[in-house]
């Protein structure tokens, strides 16, 4: 079975790989077709995802281990299947679908994103405690960057924006380029191993 999956992966992967180097009409068409199949497969896997979500939460409701998690799972199941049924049978412009989207999903997503500000503050507090030389360098660079990005920083000393630009372009830029080159080679190596069948642990063996 694993051999079959490897052959399918090789047959589907090589045209997509070749199409990124050269423009051969047949190869490009085949690659585009395989990419379309990929989107269809991803669509089917969404169904598997919904089934997993339902299975996990139905089990949680049945177990009634904790009141809070039972309640959360119940609300999730009701909202999930309500939106699926309304979306499939009445379309996404139906008032119920729109109501849930505007009054539940959008505010919840916005709240999630807003919480990041607080997480950044607590992470910065932990990182800026000067415990060693690395943390001290991080603290100094962080302070310069913050001062360069607020109006009062330039009023205190006009050199903050220049120093911050040098940190970003020279120090940060050089380190980031090193990381990007290294991880690029790593990503290609992993993909090639999967494509030629040297790597099989993602198949479960």
């Amino acid at each position, binding site marked *: 079975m694993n051999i079959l999956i490897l052959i399918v992966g090789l047959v589907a992967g090589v045209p997509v790989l070749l199409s990124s180097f050269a423009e051969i009409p047949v190869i490009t068409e085949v690659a585009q077709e395989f990419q379309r199949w990929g989107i269809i497969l991803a669509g089917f896997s969404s169904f598997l995802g919904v089934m997993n979500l339902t299975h996990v939460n139905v089990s949680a409701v049945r177990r009634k281990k904790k009141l809070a998690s039972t309640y959360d799972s119940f609300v999730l199941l009701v909202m999930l299947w309500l939106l699926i049924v309304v979306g499939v049978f009445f379309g996404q412009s139906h008032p119920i679908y729109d109501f849930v989207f505007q009054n539940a999903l959008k505010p*919840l997503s916005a709240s999630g994103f807003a919480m990041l500000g607080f997480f950044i503050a607590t992470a910065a507090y932990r990182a800026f405690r000067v415990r060693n030389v690395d943390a001290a360098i991080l603290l100094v660079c962080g302070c310069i960057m913050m001062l360069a990005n607020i109006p009062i920083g330039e009023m205190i000393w006009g050199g903050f924006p220049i120093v911050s630009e040098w940190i970003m372009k020279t120090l940060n830029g050089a380190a980031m380029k090193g990381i990007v080159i290294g991880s690029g080679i*790593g990503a*290609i190596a992993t993909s090639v191993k999967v494509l030629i069948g040297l790597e099989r642990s993602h198949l479960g063996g």
Partner: protein
Amino acid sequence: MVFKDGGRFAFLLLIFLVAVLLYCHKKVKAGFRPQIREIPAFKGIEEAVGRAAEMGRPIHFTPGSDAFNAQTAGMTLAGVICLAHIASLCARYDVRLLVSNRRPEVQPVTEEVVKQAFLTEGKSGAYRPTDIRFFSDDQFAYASGVVGVISGENTAANIMLGGFYAESLMFAEAAATYGNIQVAGTASTSQIPFFVTTCDYVLIGEELYAAAAILSDDPAQVSSLVMQDIVRVVIICLVTIGAVATSFGWHGIKDIVLKW
């Protein structure tokens, strides 16, 4: 064959890469073992599993936000490869492993990897399908789900290996609040600083891809490490020679790389 700009060079580099990989694979299979430098994060994974076993609490793992059909799929693949090893360790030491997924197509793959690892360790009875969970492909719904697992299941360790976006800090901060030992790895340059400041062990960039090799000692993995080092030296030489040549007004190498 009509190559795109820079296509010939990229194609030749890929051929070179595959040839070096196959050569190194042959050498490693014949008994060659390179010296691999120790990276604390690799020990961190074993430490995390050991700590969870001692405390009798579960471990949380997530392969991140990227799908298998994205350009950054390599990170997800590397995360899943490491998951195979982590699942084996968990099965061996009777630690419950909770896996959270954002992408539905990654869900069946992680299920299969964990199931096979438990089967191989002879602990098929300990495998629980409901512990491998899909939340949502919406970024913050997935993030909320992961934070819910970390807080609700009282995890002892949190391992995040793959591609991450803004949700990375939410996971790391939530796990830090609950006293989890944390191991993170990503090649996503915008998220590395968040992991470095919040996690106990971090695999930076290429270390994520190297993790699988060091964890498994599989010839294919070890040979890929050797290949990566050889290709890295070649690329560094090209970059250095190209930079010097361009500085002196000769654009030959730059033209070969970008336009040939």
